[in-house]
């Protein structure tokens, strides 16, 4: 919406020292020559210094170590610890059941190193020898103990990374990780931005059944319903008798009884309706865009093995390399994105900003009042309100909910754009929920006509 200034606001360090989120709106500091104002400024500064002075570091127990394998362009984490691996890393076979190991791709490696969570070393032969040794130990132990239940995993800790391996600086890691693929820096920028905001990010994976197959199923079902009743056929036939086209005027000269009927007879220009692009699934276009990341809002229940439908799907574009996507590129993306045809939900409505402290906001009070007023209304009116609300939502956010987010990179600056499939005529798929709410659910009406 239009609360852009909220996003661009300057960091207020005082937040860190108080429990309550301050109210926005009033200026904190407006110099007027009085002590009050300069004191305010001083307080803010001190709060910032206090926030920065807090000791930051890692407990040795939690220390994470990764080894960069230059030939694999991946990092190996022999011992996973900490909360980072909910959506990071691919599990690797480890000599012990108790200890989990994982491989990190370049982006994940740089992200964890840059946030200071991992110490990274360059792989060499001495480490490889150590690894094989452990593996052999493990096999022997398993043989001797029968079932490998209880044995200590301290072997892993004994390897002295500092003296046996070369420690990598961040700059060195950047060079090693990103040099082979020029798109990685941009990807990393988007990835790290979203991760730091708390999102769960995985590489894009085509996880749904092909939309085209589902679409065909849907079409078959629709055909069985035989949507045109005899009455309607008769009606349109009678109407066609009256409308003889003369002299290039579209609206036939006859008696009209409703404006809806006038608009109906003016409908002429073919327009796209939801899922149409699935019908003409063509050869891939030249510069096919592919989704890059699946993104989830932060949630405690998340499994990277069996993730749910992603909340957002991100495509990365660079102003240096591409122009605004063409229609066929956009539609191809809709078609190849993770989308369930039958889950007809208009997604991604902007979240309302919650003000947990300091009582309900003005917006919440207004919403509450509207709710009360609504509950007192006649059910028929309530229905028509719901109908119009749903329709407005469909106009604004699309009828199918098919959308993706373009992360546009312009020389290091990232801008996010949401593109969704629009449908103003509301004449095809995905209008059953509207039909149910309409004043006469049995008669098929033109939902797109807003008069």
């Amino acid at each position: 919406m239009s609360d852009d200034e909220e996003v661009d606001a300057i960091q207020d360090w005082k937040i860190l020292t108080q429990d309550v989120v301050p109210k926005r709106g009033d200026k904190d500091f407006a110099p007027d020559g009085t002590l009050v104002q300069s004191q305010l400024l001083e307080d803010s500064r001190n709060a910032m210094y206090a926030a920065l002075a807090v000791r930051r570091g890692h407990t040795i127990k939690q220390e994470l170590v990764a080894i960069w394998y230059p030939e694999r362009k991946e990092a190996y984490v022999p011992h996973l610890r900490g909360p980072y691996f909910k959506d990071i890393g691919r599990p690797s076979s480890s000599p012990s059941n108790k200890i989990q190991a994982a491989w990190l791709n370049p982006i994940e490696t740089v992200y964890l190193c840059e946030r200071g969570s991992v110490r990274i070393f360059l792989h060499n032969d001495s480490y490889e020898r150590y690894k094989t040794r452990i593996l052999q130990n493990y096999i022997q132990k398993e043989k001797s103990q029968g079932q490998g239940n209880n044995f200590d995993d301290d072997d892993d800790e004994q390897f002295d990374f500092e003296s046996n391996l070369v420690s990598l600086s961040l700059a060195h890691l950047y060079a090693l990780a990103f040099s082979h693929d020029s798109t990685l820096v941009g990807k990393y920028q988007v990835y790290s931005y979203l991760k730091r905001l708390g999102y769960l990010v995985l590489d894009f994976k085509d996880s749904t059944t092909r939309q085209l197959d589902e679409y065909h199923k849907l079409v078959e079902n629709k055909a069985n319903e035989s949507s045109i009743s005899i009455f309607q056929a008769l009606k349109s036939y009678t109407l066609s008798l009256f409308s003889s086209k003369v002299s290039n005027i579209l609206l036939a000269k006859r008696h009209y009884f409703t404006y809806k009927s006038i608009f109906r007879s003016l409908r002429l220009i073919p327009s796209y309706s939801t899922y149409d692009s699935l019908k003409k699934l063509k050869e891939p276009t030249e510069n096919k865009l592919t989704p890059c990341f699946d993104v989830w809002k932060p949630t405690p229940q998340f499994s990277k093995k069996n993730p749910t439908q992603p909340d957002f799907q991100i495509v990365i574009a660079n102003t240096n390399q591409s122009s605004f996507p063409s229609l066929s590129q956009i539609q191809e993306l809709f078609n190849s994105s993770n989308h369930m045809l039958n889950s007809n939900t208009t997604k991604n409505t902007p979240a309302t900003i919650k003000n947990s402290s300091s009582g309900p906001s003005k917006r919440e009070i207004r919403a509450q009042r509207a709710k009360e007023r609504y509950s007192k209304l006649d059910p028929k009116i309530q229905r028509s309100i719901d109908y119009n609300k749903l329709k407005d939502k469909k106009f604004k956010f699309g009828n199918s909910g098919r959308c993706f987010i373009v992360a546009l990179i312009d020389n290091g600056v990232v801008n996010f754009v949401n593109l969704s499939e629009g449908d103003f005529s509301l004449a095809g798929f995905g209008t059953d929920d509207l039909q149910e709410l309409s004043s006469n659910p049995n008669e098929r009406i033109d939902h797109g006509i807003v008069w």
Partner: protein
Amino acid sequence: MGKRSKNFKELYPNPVPITLSTDAYGINLPDIIPHNPISWLIFGLRYLQIQAKSIPSNVVRVDFEDDVFKVLDPTDMNRLWSHGFFGKGSLSRSDPNWADRTSARLGLDDDTQQGRNASEEITKQRREERKRFKLERAKVQNLELKQRQGALNEDEEVELNDLRETLNNLKKIVPARKAISTTSNSLREEDEVLLIEGLDNLEYLQLQAVESFYLKFALGAIDIFEQNESLSSLELFKKCNSIDSKFMLNYVVYHHFRSLGWCARSGIKFGCDMLLYKRGPPFSHAEFGILIIPTKQEFINWIDVSSVARVVGGVKKNLVLCYVDEPIEDIELSEVSDIASLLKLYKVTEILYRRWTPSKSRD
């Protein structure tokens, strides 16, 4: 809000300048209740009653002069404005109300006409109220500063409290919907001509090319004259295409949204091609801004789109990218004879463009 919009619904009940036969003859068609044969009978009777009468027709004259579509007759101007909000008054901000404003300014209105207020007047008054509020607020802030500096004497303290009171009262005032008569303005020199010769309406309603063509071709609600010669739809079509090379694209999108009941008007003020209103400008702000893009256009600059989106988003409208498929074969527009068949060769696809802020989409 509810009361106001209801008022507007009575003022502007018609979305197009076409009179419904039920309205013209005051005969209402009852709802048909399928299992009640009497309702069928009544419906049939009334239906025949209307069919026996002549089709109501009220065609507006439009003059095409110097590449401008003009409506000169005041009643016609009003009809096109109030029935679907077509055109713009040449001497007004939107609706053609120059004559009303001027006669109010010159004090020519009798009592019955008082209270008909032009939107321009209301805006002016609102701005004055706002200005007053800001002045008072500045006074309060000055005194508050003095108070902080400890230099406030007793009189000023009383004044501060009084000012705070007035400020609070000013905040409560509902912005005026009716302008207070502004007859007190002194007359201008050129007003004498108007006073002596009587107030002649100097204003005309100017139509966009797409509006004119829609009114003519789609609705048959206007007749167009060029040097007193009537233009047919086809002639007008060719004329419009010769004036504006993007006419076809614009018209396709215009017709698409108009035929869905939207009130489409020029989007030049917000850097886009079109604005979509529900019902019309008096009812609510435009909800959508339209950017027309021919599908075959190969290069579209990111910045062009994002700048439009930023402007449109900044005024709480949603940006819709309208991709238009054009006929595959090249069509010589000057040789077209059947416009409807031509229009069917186009196709409109809407893509919704919205800025996404990760920090606000998280919860």
